[in-house]
């Protein structure tokens, strides 16, 4: 029962790789966007805010299909990237990472935005009177004080990314060794006669991974909060 086969391992490792890459690439973008949404009023702000949250409410298959239209080989962006930079998303693990990044993006942005909004602006003022430029204020005061939210967002985004199914399978299909993540592997195994035991093994693995992510985020958040309260 607990012998995990090489194919299953491949799916688990691919999920982890996709989750890590998606989270690490999406985090800086999410921080920049959360910052803009938390601190500035600008034209089109509510449209951008809504667009960021769209993957949360759209059927994942719709998001996946839109990604295929945009980033597929004949897609507007995908075609250009393939021709000019040699970056291909369609039916590659990179596409799975893109899909997971997009799907987990709202979960990243939200806690980061809330934690930036919670940063005491008076501390930022104090920093600037001590000679810190706006960038230095951001790097030495805002960012460290927003760290609990950033870490919480990253863990949540990562957990979402390793579990993503609908958009990924629509965009990059379900190719073992290339785009078959743990979710799509479970899906395939359920469709296969006698695949139940293997599916159950992967279900257990995914529960363990998700639990680990949640516990980690809790630990990080607690540690960071303690740090911020200055004790």
């Amino acid at each position, binding site marked *: 029962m607990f012998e995990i086969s090489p194919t299953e391992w491949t799916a688990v490792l691919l999920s982890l790789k996709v989750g890590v890459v998606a989270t690490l690439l999406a985090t800086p973008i999410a921080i920049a966007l959360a910052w803009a949404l938390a601190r500035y009023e600008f034209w089109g702000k509510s449209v951008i805010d809504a667009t960021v949250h769209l993957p949360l409410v759209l059927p994942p298959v719709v998001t996946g299909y839109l990604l295929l239209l945009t980033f597929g080989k004949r897609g507007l962006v995908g075609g250009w990237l393939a021709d000019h930079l040699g970056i291909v998303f369609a039916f590659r693990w990179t596409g799975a990472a893109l899909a997971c990044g997009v799907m987990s993006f709202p979960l990243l942005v939200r806690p980061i935005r809330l934690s930036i909004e919670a940063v005491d602006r*008076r501390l930022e003022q104090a920093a600037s*009177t*001590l*000679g*810190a*430029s706006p960038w*230095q204020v951001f790097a*030495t005061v805002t960012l460290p004080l927003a760290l609990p939210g950033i870490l919480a967002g990253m863990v949540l985004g990562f957990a979402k990314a390793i579990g993503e199914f609908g958009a990924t399978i629509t965009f990059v299909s379900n190719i073992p060794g290339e785009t078959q993540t743990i979710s799509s592997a479970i899906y395939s195994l359920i469709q296969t006669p006698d695949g139940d035991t293997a599916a159950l093994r992967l279900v257990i693995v995914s529960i363990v991974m998700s639990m680990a992510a949640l516990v980690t985020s809790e630990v990080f958040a607690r540690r960071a909060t303690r740090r*911020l309260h200055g004790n």
Partner: protein
Amino acid sequence: MLHVEVSKQLGDFSVEVAFTSEGRVTGLFGASGAGKTSLISMIAGLQKPDRGVISVDGEALDDTTKSLHIAVHQRRIGYVFQDARLFPHLDVRRNLDYGRRMNRLTRDPAQETRLNDMLNIGHLLDRRPGQLSGGERQRVALGRALLSRPRLLLLDEPLGSLDEDRKAEILPYLMRLRDEAGVPMVYVSHDPDELRQLASHIVMLKRGRVAAFGGTEVLPT
């Protein structure tokens, strides 16, 4: 020398203030709502005057006729807030060192030791702001502002959030700073006794205007 000649509209309230002070400690006196904090935020550069000039030792920091507004972080004006505003994620040592790091100044261990002694904060260096008493926090905030080597130090009711005993504890430190630190100060307070002990020149504010300017004798008894 501090020269201020500014006007600013803030909702229904307007600040229109002009004075020049040569004093080592200029006291800004007035009831709450008289415009003291608006005025020193303008000196610090946190707020922009609608019209006017602010200069320190002949160097203009604001001059609306020339659209000049030096940014807060380039003014080299220290600010001690009523609520200390120490960085909660840094220990006392790193709070004190913050201004030096941001301005890329070289370390001056002699000055650090002198200030630690003068403010009696040497034993607090490894603590976090959350582990300090109100008076200790305010002393660290004073040290932090001075270690950024400002040319002018603004103190906005630094004793305002402390009880009488703590006030009596901090006042002597402030007098030592005045006599030994060699940095001119603008000291905001609504307490005439405090100003009598610290300030040489008084700007009395009433509803956003200068009601009196002179020595400590203009303070109400």
